[in-house]
């Protein structure tokens, strides 16, 4: 499945190793990626680059992934952006917390590229469907 190049994925991850391999994997799958290595930069990119999907670590040097999620979901314009946690917190209670906070998906490290790609594509698919329905609604 191909993804149009105009859809942008924001990766908020402070570990340069993870950020780099994610960027490579997504690029190899024709997905545009922008990486923020801390929370503040991540929020700035959300505002400026308008990503279609956000992949976010929980433990960031300046804030928690939960805080970024809350800011996104509290924003009337951006609350629809699919938000996926990508974290080393693998305890079921951590997963539940992430989902309760309103995340659309929760991926634990280590992960396979397939898990990442499928998670992103299925979220983008849903977004596209909603968008096209909205456009067709408008057409009527």
């Amino acid at each position, binding site marked *: 499945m191909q993804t149009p190049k105009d859809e942008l994925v924001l990766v908020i991850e402070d*570990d340069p*190793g*993870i950020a780099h*391999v994610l960027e*490579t994997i997504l690029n*190899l799958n024709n997905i545009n990626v922008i990486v923020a290595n801390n929370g503040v930069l991540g929020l700035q990119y959300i505002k400026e680059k308008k990503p279609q999907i956000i992949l976010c670590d929980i433990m960031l040097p300046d804030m928690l992934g939960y805080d970024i999620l809350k800011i996104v979901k509290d924003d009337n314009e951006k609350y629809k952006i699919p938000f996926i946690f990508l974290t080393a917190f693998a*305890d079921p209670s951590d997963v539940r917390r992430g989902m309760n906070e309103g995340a659309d998906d929760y991926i634990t490290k280590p*992960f*396979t*590229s397939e898990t990442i790609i499928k998670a992103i594509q299925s979220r983008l698919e849903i977004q596209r469907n909603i968008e096209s329905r909205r456009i067709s609604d408008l057409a009527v």
Partner: protein
Amino acid sequence: MEISSINKIFDISGMGLLVEDANRKIKFTNQKFVEFMQIDSKPEDMVGLDCALTAKYAKHLFADPDKFEFDIIDIPKKCLPTDEIIQMANGSYFKRMYSAFFLENGSYDNVWVYQDVTITVEKSLEIERQKEFYLNILNEIPADIAIFNDKHKYLYLNRIAVENEETRNWLIGKDDFEYCEHKNIDSKLANLRRSWFNEALNNHKPFQKVDEVKKPNGTIKYVLRIFHPIYNKQNELTYVVGYGIDITDQYETAIFIENQNLRFKKLINGLTDGVFQIGVDGKLIFYNHAILNIIKSDVNNLLGYFDFKTISNLTNKSIDNLYRLFKKVAANQASENGILAFEFKDKSIKYIDYYFWFSSNPVDGDCVIGRISDVTLQKLRENDLNSIIHKEKELNNLKSHFINITSHELRTPLAVIMSSAEIIDMILSKPNLDQKIKPENYTNKILAEVNRITDILNDLLIVGQIESGKIKFKPEPVNIKEYIEKIVTENYSTYKDGRSIDYRVQEDGRKVQLDKNLMRHVILNLIENAFKYSPNKPAPILEVLQTANELKISVKDYGIGIPKKDMENLFQTFYRASNVGNISGTGVGLMIVKHAIQTHNGRIELDSKVGEGTTITTYIPINNVNDTKHADTKG
């Protein structure tokens, strides 16, 4: 003297008189006589009458009429004087005296005198009866009774004292020495009794003693022997009553009770537990020796004391607590148990396990009985145990925390390794890919992340070794400049965020004895921490200075700093400062640093201010190898 005068004298004296001649014809009689014989004639009319006839006439008046009649005929035949008491039929008694009165012509007269002795006889009979009564009592009393004179000679013995009548009678007027000689037995007994006798006399009061008497069958009889001196009004000794009561049963019972008592006392005083009984008025009724130790008493005999304040060295507070418990037990008529802290005036403390209960008995009335045990040792052991358990729990919590952290810390490098491997796989399966994506970039990443995992595992391994005391100290001569530069360039030419460490080494060329492996952990941990806890801040500074005596290694950062409250615990295993926030870490680095420096006989200085930065400096003595060759490896 005129006959009539004699008659009068006899009448006044209350005697009946009859004189007869040898032919038994009455020559003279008086008024009293005819009254006695109830003869209805005047005395002078009796003269010339036959005496035997008169006897026949009066014999019915006598209790034994035939004997009277016979005696009247018989007695004068013998011409011997008689004096006898005759019982009359009416119960009265007469004394009859006969005498032959010889005349000048060779003949003789029979003279009979009668006197009413009823009162005298009855009195003497009464006395006789009383004597018999008392003798019977004395003989029947189940005690041997003897009466002695002032010389300890027997005046009387009862049947119990000496059963054999012959011996009993023999003993009268004799003493125990004579008895012993008579019976051919040791005079020890006589000596002993004499001493008791003298004791009573000397003290003017009864003396008593338990006498052990061996019975013929070999068993022992216990006799309570009492010598009771009796004094008259002039305080002169009249006699001494000695009596002995067989108290074998009572004595054996008493001995049994005494032995029981002794056994009980030994038992109760042998206890290390204190036992006491206290009246509801607070008076101490009973206690054992252990009590004295437990309450640290200086008083020898506590009985009867009302107040623990005077008999113990307890503080007033402890005594008040104790009395509150007594009152509660007495008021509820129930029991109380638990553990009390006894505080003493010397500031020492004993922990006392107590059990108090209400009791009531006819002798002591309502009271509280208590059992107290000194459980200070157990309590201290329990405290130790609790603190060990607490420490163990804490350690366990820290370990689970560490496992969580470690698994979290391992997931990130594993993710990089996994993704890198997948990328390499993609590159290899799609040869027409972007030339910029080179497989070697990812094999390098895999290697770097494997090193990262290895470092975490090594830290873990070292902690395990330190905790189990298995870490080896292997010092060797090290060129400081080369050693430091190698570590820094290999690991921190650039940190992952792009910063580079600023380092200065100043040395004098001498080699220093170091365990290279342990010191590598020290330097890496200090630098890693300095970078990790100072994000977006100037790079840390490493300064190494070799002086004449010491090697100083100092790492300074401009990071978040360490709160004061955390400084003390910072070098403990798994402990992390409260302000680390989202910065990941296992909490073992500084523990390893501390251990390694201690192993080198060195010391650590910590200087930090929250928000400004931290400087950690370690000092290692140079030429430390001799005295630290096998240093204790426990942290």
